[in-house]
């Protein structure tokens, strides 16, 4: 069973997917300062199903290329600090099956 592909971690799960990334982000953290000073939990780094958001000491890194475009971050950010749009037509995630 050693050859069996498991896709346990989020990195491995994301690797199963096809993305056609746009050159610019469709997700914008409006103010890193809000994340830094008002948001101890940085909850988006937890509930985002693709781990798009990663806190890097003083700023939020947004790996928009792996976004599933679900909308959770826009709704779940307690400070309404995320500007959320769809990627340009034909770009972003491309589901092949489900």
């Amino acid at each position, binding site marked *: *069973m050693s050859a*069996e*592909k*498991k*896709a*346990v971690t*989020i990195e491995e*799960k*994301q690797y*199963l*997917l096809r993305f*056609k990334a746009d050159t610019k982000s469709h997700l914008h953290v409006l103010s890193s300062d809000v994340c830094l000073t008002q948001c101890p*939990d940085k*909850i988006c780094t*937890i*509930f985002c*199903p*693709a*781990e798009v958001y990663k806190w890097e000491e003083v700023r939020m890194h947004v790996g928009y290329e792996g976004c*599933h*475009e*679900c*909308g*959770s971050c*826009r*709704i*779940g950010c307690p400070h*309404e600090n995320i500007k959320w*749009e*769809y*990627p*340009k*037509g*034909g770009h*972003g*995630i*491309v*589901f*092949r*099956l*489900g």
Partner: protein
Amino acid sequence: MPDKFDVIVVGAGPAGISCAYHLAKSGVNVILIERGEYPGSKNVMGGVLYRKMMDDIIPGFYKEAPLERPIVEQRFMMLDKESALTFGYKGLEWAEEPYNNFTVLRAKFDQWFASKAEAEGALLINETVVLECIVEDGRVIGVRTDRPDGEIYADVVVLADGVNSLLAKQLGFHKEFKPNEVALATMEILKLDKAIIEDRFNLEPNQGCTIEIFGDATKGILGTGFLYTNKDTLSIGVGTLLSGLIKHKIKPYELLEYVKNHPMIKPYIKGSEPQEYLAHLIPEGGYHSMPKIVGNGVIVVGDAAQLVNAIHREGSNMAMTSGILAAETILLAKMTGDYSENMLDHYRMKLMDSFVGKDLKKYKDATHHFDKFPQYFEKYIPLMNQAASQMFTVDGSSKKEKQNKIWKDIGSAGEKMKIARDLVRAWRVMK
């Protein structure tokens, strides 16, 4: 491409395609705008498609549509850490025409369905995002897309743009949703040999099984897990209110791994190979979260109108019915040339009078209730498991002694009163 159509439909999912199909078939000049590379490329669901509503649109569709398996058995698992209380129904009447429901993979199904709308004369445009509705004198007269010179005009715009429905929000039809109005679902498609699936789930070829999983699948948070059989894959997933993930600080993909590794689930998926991982929101606010669904020159359908029955995992069927009712209303409006809110309100009335509106009303307080009182999932499912274990374990004590022990283990008289009250409350929101 002309810039004026009779109708613009935004979004090629079940609601939008149904609407465009029906309009095109009736000779209406309709454009269907999809932001993905192809219809289905942005669309996710657990995988159950109900036959009836689709059959109303394309009779006998199951003879040619890319379906996975007709469902002959629906199981429900009440899960604890190392046990499960399971019940279900299997009926061979579901194994033959006209069938009850099927598992589907949406990327395949939606492409096929959209191609049927195209064959009827609808113009499908992929890879195009609708940025906003064009409003003039309080009336929606078209849409602005992200294409160069991308303004398109129509008598009516149908918003089938899915759960996030940024367009309905822009029109002021709803405010931003709250984390307790949406469920975040993650799922995986797992490859597994056909014959193994059939052995493991006790199925004949071309028969399928669905398992809904409650309780420990979501670590007691309000939500459900699911495991569905496809032809040569399984769909496994878990969805909880976004507010639940936030409150308990749980990573959704870790919850999915938890389900996959649960001792009651793991043997079902053993030896399978992940093919795809998907995340999507489900509108679960129900009746109370419905936006305004009709305006001057505009109609909202499907997930965008929050048409999901979370208790019965229905949604795509409601989307289809809403799409057809929208199309029928537009045909009426076309006869009089009146596309005012007043005229299009016919759609809202028809929808609320159909099973869609009736079921939304029936369960209007259910999600809120189970969200507000977490003991159903956190405490009562483990209690049920313990009671079953107690009753079915033969250890020399009499059945009466066992009953007394179960009764005692429930707790004080106060605890018992609380459970009785919760049962009554649950009955009230579900009846």
